[in-house]
């Protein structure tokens, strides 16, 4: 397959970026989107040019490192998929692809397609945990958890912290990310005690990190590669009261 690529190149946070045009051929439909970019980078090395920087690690859709807005969609248009698990067979031969970094002021561009998502870590640090001491927990089966609650908690906990929800949101809000963490812990009896306080802390931190608020555009859940449900936001609002 052949593709025309418009790739965002930016030297660092403080310089202006721009789209650069690349043509690439000989792409197998079974190659992943990132493997296609690998192939392009190999060409760039041959030509003596600096490679295009993009985040990746596990390449199996679980680590949350990969990003990329492809033709306007974070992680591409395919639902419930990370960029690393997007395959070139999803695109028509000879199509044109616009590849950009996550766009949000709380995620400043580091270089090319890579952004700084450490704001997410700081949100978790502000209270996204159960304050249990390590090393001296009670017997696990002493606390029973209703299966439905455990399953719903798990579903919320599947968030991989990639930031697609922020990238797609017109307000660049991290509400889905925050709500998922709040729900994950609040649904479990061991996390319930701190839940209101936790929710307040996380929301405040989200705001102070410069993320916008939620105004119900609901794009986040569609962009989410892990199908994190909007119900989490409802639950969070209930907890906040």
């Amino acid at each position, binding site marked *: 397959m052949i593709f025309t690529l418009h790739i965002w190149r930016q030297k660092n946070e403080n310089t202006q970026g721009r789209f650069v045009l690349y043509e690439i051929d000989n792409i197998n439909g079974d190659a992943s989107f990132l493997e296609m970019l690998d192939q392009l980078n190999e060409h760039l090395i041959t030509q003596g040019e600096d490679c295009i*920087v993009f985040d990746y690690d596990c*390449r199996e859709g679980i680590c949350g*490192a990969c990003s990329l807005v492809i033709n306007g969609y974070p992680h591409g248009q395919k639902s419930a998929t990370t960029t690393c698990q997007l395959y070139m067979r999803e695109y028509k031969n000879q199509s044109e692809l616009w590849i950009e970094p996550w766009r949000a002021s709380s995620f400043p561009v580091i270089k090319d397609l890579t952004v700084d998502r450490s704001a997410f870590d700081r949100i978790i640090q502000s209270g996204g*945990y159960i*304050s249990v001491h*390590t*090393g001296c927990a009670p017997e696990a089966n002493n*606390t029973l*958890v209703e299966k439905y609650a455990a399953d719903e908690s798990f579903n919320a906990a599947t968030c991989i912290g990639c930031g697609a929800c922020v990238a797609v949101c017109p307000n660049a809000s991290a509400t889905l990310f925050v709500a998922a963490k709040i729900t994950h812990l609040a649904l479990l009896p061991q996390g319930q005690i701190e839940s209101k306080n936790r929710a307040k802390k996380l929301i405040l931190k989200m705001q102070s990190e410069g993320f916008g608020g939620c105004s119900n555009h609901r794009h986040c859940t569609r962009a989410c590669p892990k199908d994190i449900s909007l119900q989490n936001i409802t639950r969070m609002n209930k907890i906040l009261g």
Partner: protein
Amino acid sequence: MSQLNANEPVGPLENRWKKHVFDLALIAPQNRKKYKIIVIGTGLAGSSLCATLGQAGYKVSSFCFQDSARRAHSIAAQGGINASKNYQNDGDSVWRLFYDTIKGGDFRARESNVYRLAELSNRIIDQAVAQGVPFAREYSGYLANRSFGGTQVSRTFYAKGQTGQQLLLGAYSAMSRQVENGRVTHHARSEMLEIITINGKARGVVVRNLVTGELSTHTADCVVLCTGGYVNAYYLSTNAKGCNASATWRGFKQGAYFANPSFTQIHPTCIPPTLENQSKLTLMSESLRNDGRIWAPKQAKDCEKNPKDIKQEDRDYFLERLYPAFANLVPRDVASRAVKHICDEGRGVGIKIHGKRLGVYLDFSDVIKKIGLAQVEQKYGNLFEMYQRITDDNPYLTPMKIYPAPHYSMGGLWVDYNLMTTLDGLFAAGEANFSDHGANRLGASALMQGLADGYFILPQTIANYLARNTFDKIKPNHEKVEQALNAAKARIEQLMNAPKARHSPEYFHQKLGKILWESCGMSRQRTRLEQAIDEIEVLQLEFWQTIKVTGIDQDLNQTLERAGRVADFIELGALMCKDALNREESCGAHVRMEHLSSEGEAKRDDKNYSFVAAWAYQQQGAKLHEQYLHFEFIKPSVRNYK
């Protein structure tokens, strides 16, 4: 005292760890903040250690190359975590988990270490549940278990196919709490390039800021490597692309012995390669073997057919045929070898790569008939989805295809019972050390080991080390600090300025991977290994002559990062082959073709090879130290899964 004193306690096995903990020196709470500990890597071992040390009150500096501590490759573990809770009342016990792990490791691990691991397994589950890890539950609200990877008891705890992710989020959140408390200072996008050794003790590290390319030095009272395994040496593996051996290799070059480098595990249930320039392989959880049936066509002529058109009588359920007692649940190495054997015979299925079809079927049609689609979906839904996303095949309708792939390294830095390497003050935990899995690792045991090391073992043994040693203050311009910094600088310069720069890091990595997969994979033989060692030597020369890194070093430069890691993989690859060559026996995850029984099964040689092969770095070539293993409690038996 020999350098390879494992510091194992003596006496009844059940009391060893308890007694050892009591004998270890302590640091009083008010004094802990005077000590600084560097932790490299934030997977299960690293982040759980940071959380525990931070809470105890030490000053901790942690580093990871990923953009967040939460992304370490522990997240990719799907299947589960073992513990000997015996919730299912099926006869499990600490002793049985210990026994299974020693036996699964083919009698190449230390009894004291493994018993401790089995003992601590239960506390890990307690800890994780308290942190809010959403394990699978029964309708009663109690924790659910499953049997996993060849064990005959249900002792595996799981969170659908995301057990690693959920456990790491638990440890990461506990670590985050300590970051907020100011006790842990975390540095993301930072790669350790050198260890600073002063007066024979590890006292710090040189780190490259991956965003700016800036090198900085950090000193402390001890250093802990929690940097994972090295099967990315094979190029194609189930590891994340960034997984590398550079930190452990720096440790090795500073005097930490590298143990059993040839002990790598090849996982049977991965998605087969479909492209010649594929970047990685994806693991499908082994739990799939609980219900899926593995088969290949009996006749090579059927290999191209749609599997639905192959009649029952033309299918060879080869694991059920060869190993009726364990059938599809035989250990990983047995399954992997059988699958590779079938494909080498020309009975593989799927797309031809380099002239061979690399795949066999993993079929769920029987279990779907038996328990219904809904039940199967409940158990394996997310794994099936993942498979379909990658292959475009629907495993509810057509059998999956699987093929073995490098997955885990049992080898790693040699450590004593305190998890300290032969370099004083340098500790290694999780997959980065060699300690608990012998020559093969059982499914659902890696998560257990990483967390046992981080939550429970190291916090005690590090305190002991700190209490029993004195630490001079180190000036920032100390000669040894400068020396380490200059070594890191010189290496980067060499990578950036090869005399005949021509080839990318990927070019060399793929070449190395091919050599290792063909010579030092599941089946090995002397001639191939000797040839591989020669080939790697040539490759290494070529690398330093022609490695091409574009861009500049004072910048975010992923090509430079990769080049440095590949350079270390090449050296490690040579040591893997050397170790494999030295081990004249079939053991654990690998067979030596020269050492097979008349039935073609692995033949272990306890008389001559019941030792840990610990290699010491020397410029003229690594030197072997043999640490013999003594089995006081379990008599080594021959594994037989027939």
